[in-house]
């Protein structure tokens, strides 16, 4: 069972996000970390390989400036190797370009049974990349998985829906996107962190993957401040504040 996991290295979401004033795209030039929503996919992949009893987990990622700190986190969790597409020409790439590049990186990563990705990144959240990768590779896909079990040549997935969830059966190889909370991601052990330093990261450019012309058909024209909401009234609870809430709700005619 070989699983490839698409991971994104993003600016720390705990820090306030910033736009590059010249391009109006998200600033990604500082230290990048493993997108937390991808740590679920990495954990799921490790568990599936462990259950199968053979095979390995390979990471694919795209980032400018040869950034690997997020990849090292996932390698420390137990992934075996990584393919990193690092190319300044890809800065600000749209979701379709990203999917083509990651599909190329998946082709370079070797044989696989399953590709796992997060449903959407925490910084850009276009939310189409996993399905686009599947289409580029000509594979079936199941999005928004909350459980995954591999059974011979098929994968069984509980897929979230607006109202609950669907049970889906899918032929392998396939692309599955996982939601946060699908599994509890492990913390890298000290041993894992030390081992990760020596694990292979194959760094390539878009051209190395046979992707020559890189452009995308969308342009940010301007960024506006949203109209601010009026600041609310702050009431410190004195034990009787619920009366004020009841009064407020009464005024709105909802009680």
């Amino acid at each position, binding site marked *: 069972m070989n699983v490839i996991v698409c991971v994104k290295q993003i600016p720390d979401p705990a820090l306030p996000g910033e736009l590059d004033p010249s391009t109006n795209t998200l600033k990604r030039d500082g230290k990048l970390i493993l997108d937390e929503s991808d740590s679920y996919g990495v954990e799921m992949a490790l568990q599936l390989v462990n259950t199968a009893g053979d095979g390995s987990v390979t990471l694919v990622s795209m980032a400018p400036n040869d950034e690997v700190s997020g990849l090292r986190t996932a390698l420390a969790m137990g992934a075996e190797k990584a393919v990193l597409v690092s190319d300044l020409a890809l800065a600000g790439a749209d979701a379709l370009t990203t999917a083509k590049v990651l599909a190329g990186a998946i082709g370079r990563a070797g044989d696989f049974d399953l590709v796992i990705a997060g449903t959407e990144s925490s910084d850009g959240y276009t939310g189409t990349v996993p399905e686009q990768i599947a289409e580029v590779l000509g594979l079936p896909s199941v999005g928004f998985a909350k459980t995954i079990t591999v059974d011979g040549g098929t994968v069984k997935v509980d897929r979230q829906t607006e109202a609950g969830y669907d049970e889906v*059966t899918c032929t392998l190889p396939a692309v599955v996107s996982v939601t946060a909370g699908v599994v509890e991601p492990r913390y890298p052990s000290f041993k894992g962190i030390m081992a990760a330093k020596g694990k292979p990261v194959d760094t390539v450019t878009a051209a190395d993957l046979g992707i020559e012309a890189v452009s995308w058909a969308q342009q940010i024209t301007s960024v506006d401040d949203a109209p601010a909401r009026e600041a609310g009234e702050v009431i410190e609870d004195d034990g009787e504040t619920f009366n004020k809430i009841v009064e407020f709700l009464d005024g709105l005619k909802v009680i």
Partner: protein
Amino acid sequence: MTLNNIWVFAQADGDTASTATLELLSKANTLGGSVTAFVAGSAGGAAAAFADHGAAKIYETGDLAGSLPGPAVSSAMQAVISGGDAPDVIMFPQNYEGRDVMARLSVKLDRTVLTNSTDITVDGDSVRVQTPIFGGSKLVNSTFTGERPFLAAFRPKSFEAAGGAGAAGEVVSAAAGELGATGGATVTAVHVEETSGPKLDEAAVVVGGGRGLGDAEKYDMIETLAKLLKGAPGASRAIVDAGWVPYSYQVGQTGKVVKPTVYIAAGISGATQHMVGMKGSKNIIAINKDKEAR
């Protein structure tokens, strides 16, 4: 060139048209040009509502036999487009099926996608969409620069659904082509987790609970209050991820968008992820020990 031909990816639950679809059809109907609904499965009794909200034509793929709609609907759309009925814009709802169809179609047609948007405007030759970022504090305006059709997805409740359009709603069959390996995913069972009472995204009162409640048992208070106020209980992503309540309770960027008369947030810090899903609420009551919670 203005917009002559606008498609909307349309959804229905049995004979009931989805609210998100009616919102998109209504908006499409104000942009000039003819409006087409493209349905996964059969339009059935929902066809009348689609027409009433502006659909002059309704393409339907017919029964998908349990296959996920992404590969099938995108294949059917591609077939109609190569057959000569080429739209200028295709509008998708920002939900599971909308995303899947849009993503597949984007690769088939080699077109970019713009998602999570809340508005669309046509200005001469250019089509602009507006997308809130940073929890809705900034609005990014983007234009499509390539060839048509432009593919754009919109958050629920971005537009008002307006009936009375009286469009023809002519139903036309549009079958999917051979899907090969891409059609390998099949739904074998459907589970519904909805609570009793009003639906979360339609309730006039929503009571949201977050990590600040302390532990999973305390969420009972949220359910009780919601019931007393004839509202719906909601949740932050943090407690859904922690397994306190099912995902169908989640309010936020990856959950439901709510615009109730009153939103009561109990023990919710107001992370960007959550704000995006409830900032359209008319009145907000936040109960928190942190005065700085947004």
